[in-house]
């Protein structure tokens, strides 16, 4: 059997609002839009604060820590070469629990992933973007 290369990650259309989110990983930073008036994080990014109606909303670095809100362990090989199993998850950032990022949980056995698990961001460069991924926070 010949080796089939893993499928590349599909990429999103990036616009003026989302560009920083998808590129700040180049500097090792996870950037989330935040209101300068009331400090509310706004995601998906848009320069409007739904809490105080300020238009002063711009990307700001966050800690990169978060918790697994929910996840699934995927077992089906949807396309040739796709390594399975793998974990798809929604992670809430540590700063605000209603900012949820879609991600894969990496650097662990899928069976280790659980609800509420503490995770930290890392980035994988794909074409010109830096895709945020999360891995378990290991005790130091």
């Amino acid at each position, binding site marked *: 059997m010949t080796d089939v290369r893993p499928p590349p990650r*599909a990429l*999103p259309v990036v616009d003026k609002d989302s560009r920083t989110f998808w590129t700040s990983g180049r500097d090792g930073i996870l950037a989330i839009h935040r209101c300068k008036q009331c400090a509310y994080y706004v995601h998906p990014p848009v320069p409007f604060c739904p809490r105080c109606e300020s238009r002063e909303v711009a990307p700001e670095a966050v800690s990169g820590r978060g918790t697994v809100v*929910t996840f699934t*362990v*995927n*077992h*089906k090989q*949807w396309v040739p070469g796709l390594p399975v199993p793998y974990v798809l998850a929604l992670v809430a950032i540590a700063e605000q629990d209603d900012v949820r*990022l879609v991600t894969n949980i990496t650097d662990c056995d899928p069976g280790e992933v659980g609800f509420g698990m503490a995770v930290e961001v890392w980035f994988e460069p794909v074409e010109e*973007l830096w895709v945020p991924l999360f891995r378990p926070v290991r005790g130091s």
Partner: protein
Amino acid sequence: MKRFAEKDCAITGVGMSEVSRGSAKSALELTVDACLEAIADAGLKRGEIDGIATWPGERADGSGFSPVGSAALQDALRLEVNWYAGGGEAPGQYGAVFNAIGAIAAGLCRHVLVFRTMYEATARKTAFANALIRAGERQAGPFAWYAPYHTYAAALQQALFFNLYVHKSGIRPEQVGQIAINQRRNAGLNPRAIYRTAITIEDYLASPVIATPLRLYDCDVPIDGAAAIVVSRLDGARDLRNPPIRIEAIGSSMEYRNSWTQLDALDTQAQPRVAEMMWSRTQLTTADVDIAQLYDGFSFHTLNWLENFGFCERYGAKDFIEGGKRIALDGELPVNTGGGALSAGRLHAYGAVHEACTQLWGKAGARQVAGDPKVCATSTAGGPLAGCMLLVRG
């Protein structure tokens, strides 16, 4: 009591094309089959149809998800209408029905043809096709946030919500399996169903895990087919061929964040407040409901709707369906009586409304629910998509 527009509307006819795992007919011909049958079933002529509605409108992307829109159907049948609409941004798959109600209430139409066509069986034979990732293209729209994470299908995305539901409810796989088992049993009595051989709990537990907690038998079946209904003004419905099936109440709200990632209620999805809206528009209660056709794109949607309609308490579906007796054809609440999308094919809740009317008209043959059912609750689902209706004969 305040008058609600849907109470002046009724379903007067239904139609369904052949439903298969690969059709010799085109998607448009299947649509024509379903629509002509619905018009004739209502006792109407083509020229009496004065409105068209469909969801989610034509998507010429080769996926088979919605290959026929209102324009193509209108021209095929050479209909002359006062109003038409097709589009995906609506309160779930019944958005087209709610649009039809609006058009009738506005005085634009008397008889609106509502249809849904899918051609996913053929699409998947010719190319890997799914709604969430298209190879070689940058992804836009609500699923762009999922794109880089190998989210190839709705099953994977929805599994995120269902796994949280399992975590919170404590439901066990042998309980979940009752949904698939019940529907396969019902499908055995439905000559149009795709899969008609009964399955056991052992079969269910042995079926491959797609993405936890979803097994193969929890997922609906891609088909080629079309379903259609005629929604008429009630005052013009009384003299037609069938006893009108009144739209007693609808739930069409969206009071949550309209998002596939930030939706407030991740495990119950957008259903709870939609159901509350429906019940606020009727004096009927769950005790009046004779049968239920609950969305079953995945079996967990059906579990969610049992709770969100209030047939059982929050996280009580696992006990409600235990052993499968309550939801069986002869149970206290027969559910998805024709086999649903899991066994009869994925017509995206339009198979469900077709089955609802068939049962309420007493035309369901071997699977007819006894006791002359008059009231059916029916629903749609999928993340932020949710809508529901209470249908009443007479």
